[in-house]
């Protein structure tokens, strides 16, 4: 949506520039002055953003739900760890392999989605995630079983700070791809398929191929996210990839606002940072009178569902919808709340 109407004057542009500069400084400069442990958290936020965008391709663009996304990510993580610490391959090989394997497993699931749709497909993904968690990720020769698999940081990015910038770069790449995808025929095809496969087909879109393509893209992004996650922790263990995590992924994407890049990135970052900020606010957990102390580990899964239900029932557009006016303003449009109300419900429609 390009902000139409009168363009702002030099002052206006300056103001916009200032805002953008402030954001850039926050993202780029601030971590340089924090301790390693905190940078590690910020890095995770960047990685979650990649994962959120991955899920957004399925949930948002193709309207296919995935309740097993922890498997998508986990497979990437374990592939990377395996390549590096079992096969002695370099970091890049691990990343690439993670993306390839991630894309492949997504392709398989996508093939299922062509036959099994809507709610039933949601079930399949759920079962898939659990299967991966309980079975795949326990195969010792590949994942190191419950002891996990080490995944050292790459040589040139061995400090947390450098690795943070590396992950930012990857996030930027993913954002770029996602942006171009939605600005070109591929993305338009996906939206058409999601809303009405018949119309898409009459427009010359091969529905099957594009559905599969969406899965592959999501899988590749997820694989990348997983690989980055593994190296950030320098250690992967299956316990990380449980049902709760899958739901947190879905929640952060929906709350972020499906089909809204910025919203998804913000939502994802928020859910990965919320524990950290919570810890800053109440050192050692929040002591609710009459209740147990709430440790920071549980914060995301406590407030996550609440935000989810609030979003679904009140603001289907999620965070992305709320920041639309700001985005329009930054693009040089007027700061108005006009046309921020998209009636269309944001979680995928069931395919008949």
């Amino acid at each position, binding site marked *: 949506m390009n902000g139409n109407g009168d363009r702002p004057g030099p002052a206006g542009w300056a103001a916009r520039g200032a805002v953008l500069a402030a954001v850039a400084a926050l993202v780029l400069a601030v971590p340089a002055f924090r301790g390693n442990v905190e940078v590690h958290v910020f890095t995770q936020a960047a990685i979650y953003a990649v994962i959120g965008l991955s899920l957004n391709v399925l949930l948002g663009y193709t309207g296919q739900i995935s309740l097993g996304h922890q498997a998508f990510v986990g497979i990437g993580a374990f592939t990377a760890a395996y390549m590096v610490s079992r096969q002695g391959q370099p970091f890049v090989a691990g990343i690439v392999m993670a993306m390839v394997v991630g894309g492949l497993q997504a392709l398989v699931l996508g093939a299922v989605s062509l036959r099994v749709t809507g709610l039933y497909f949601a079930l399949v993904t759920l079962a898939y995630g659990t299967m991966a968690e309980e079975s795949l990720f326990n195969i010792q020769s590949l994942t190191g079983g419950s002891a996990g698999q080490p995944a050292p940081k790459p040589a040139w990015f061995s400090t947390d700070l450098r690795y943070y910038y590396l992950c930012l770069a990857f996030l930027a790449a993913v954002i770029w791809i996602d942006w171009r995808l939605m600005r070109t025929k591929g993305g*338009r*095809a996906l*939206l058409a398929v999601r*809303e009405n496969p*018949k119309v898409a*087909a*009459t*427009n*010359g879109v091969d529905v099957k191929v594009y559905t599969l393509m969406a899965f592959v893209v999501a899988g590749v992004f997820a694989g990348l996210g997983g690989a980055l996650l593994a190296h950030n922790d320098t250690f992967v263990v299956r316990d990380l990839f449980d049902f709760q995590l899958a739901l947190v992924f879905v929640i952060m994407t929906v709350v972020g606002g499906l089909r809204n890049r910025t919203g998804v990135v913000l939502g994802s970052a928020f859910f990965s940072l919320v524990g950290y900020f919570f810890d800053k606010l109440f050192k050692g957990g929040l002591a609710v009178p009459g209740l147990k102390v709430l440790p920071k580990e549980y914060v995301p899964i406590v407030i996550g569902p609440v935000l989810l239900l609030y979003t679904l029932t009140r603001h289907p557009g999620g965070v992305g919808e709320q920041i639309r006016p700001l985005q329009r303003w930054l693009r040089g449009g007027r700061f108005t709340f006009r046309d921020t109300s998209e009636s269309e419900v944001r979680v995928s429609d069931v395919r008949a």
Partner: protein
Amino acid sequence: MSVLEVQRCSIRFGGVQAARDVSLKAGEWEIVGVIGPNGAGKTTTFDIISGFYRPDEGRVWFKGRDVTGLGVHERTALGMGRTFQNVGLVKGSTVRENLLTAQHLEAGYCALAGMLGLPSTFAAERRLRARAEALAGILGLTELLDTRVAGLPYGVLKRVELGAVLATDPDLLLLDEPTSGMGPEEAHAFGAMLLELRFEFDLTVVMIEHHVPLVAQVCDYVYCLNFGELLAEGRPEEVRANPEVIRAYLGQEAEEVLQEGAS
């Protein structure tokens, strides 16, 4: 040689024989009408032609090629364009985006290239946008380019849809009740536009239509279906005169037909 030829197509769903031995032809630059009371199998026939249904028997020939086995998108690639009774557009997107989506096969670059943002794709996108705006100009939609389709009035939607189909660069246009929901004069205007478009884009048109005057105005040839079978065919006035047709229409649309006869 005819652009479209449907040879004795039949299809049944469970117990219902939706179409039996339907055959029809459309030559180059022809505008062919398909009429018939509701449930006569008109749309079913369209679905067979455009590839949503595969006929149990019979074949569909398009530009001298047997397309019976091809998928919908493949037929589109060959130059078959189709509109829907209840507007076939991406409702969530703007008019512009719809016109772009329709140019899927015109893009001239591969989805992956677009995704990676290769320089060539930017140029291609500019081309597509220009074409979309040109089309919008022709159909008088320029003002609406950036409005979301969902809100627009029915008549406009029909026009947008027509624009979208034209964007796919078709040789054959399958219009499913293009004027439904239009008033008589609106419909007449549409007819006039259609007659122009056919030469501008050298189109062959097959249209399902209830508006008998419109049919009379534009169609070179008319097929009348009833209960999934071909009831009559011929030049519009012949078909309209055909007693069987009148009997078929008796009840729901008889009076309409009769008064048309009077005028």
